[in-house]
């Protein structure tokens, strides 16, 4: 996979942890941002991006190229990543 993978997560969310664990186990690199641990101005910027991409405030948000996956969804991750 050459696409860069970005994850917006919450540090306390078990589904976000599952998504990170799933990708790590598959040896896939990603950049994860724990939104709850950002400063409030950083948070505002990220939330604006998330709302534009997903229209809601639900975690995790996984961005792979043009694909945006909301929630922990292994089937969808497999499909998009060709696993």
């Amino acid at each position, binding site marked *: 996979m050459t696409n860069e993978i970005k994850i917006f997560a*919450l540090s*306390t969310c*078990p589904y976000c942890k599952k998504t990170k664990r799933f990708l790590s186990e598959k040896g896939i690199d990603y950049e994860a941002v724990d939104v709850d*641990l950002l400063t409030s101005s950083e948070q505002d910027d990220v*939330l604006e991006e998330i709302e534009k991409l997903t229209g809601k405030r639900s*975690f995790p948000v996984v961005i792979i190229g043009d694909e945006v996956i909301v929630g922990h969804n292994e089937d969808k991750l497999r499909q998009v990543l060709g696993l």
Partner: protein
Amino acid sequence: MTGQDERRVFCPVCSARFAPEGDLTEGDQVRCSICGQMLIVRACDNQWLGERRSMLSDDEIRDRVDGFAMIRGYGFNEMKEEIIDGLIGKRDAFGDFYCPCRLEQTPEYQCPCRPTRGGDVERDGRCHCGLFWKDSRER
């Protein structure tokens, strides 16, 4: 203290008053019928105030979650322990047991969150986090 209002106890978790069964005495332990929190009853200004038992301990949230599920007849699934870990993480990072799957750290989202207290599980079959389930066999 007598009369209907006087026998209600204020719950600091859900910021609401509930009427426990039977007579109340200072120091009694009662479970909030709205959120499941165990409270120690204190008389204050001619009202009953509930004090959170084992406030902020791991036991407090485990007991509250189990108590709420018991009152409503909800079940759990295999994610329960991971979600409770998330609740404990919220307490450690943000001071109280807020919903681990939401960004907001406000009393409204103290677990069980207001939408869940208000019937999300009846409507959707589960709460936002997937901690409480209407049918425990459901996944």
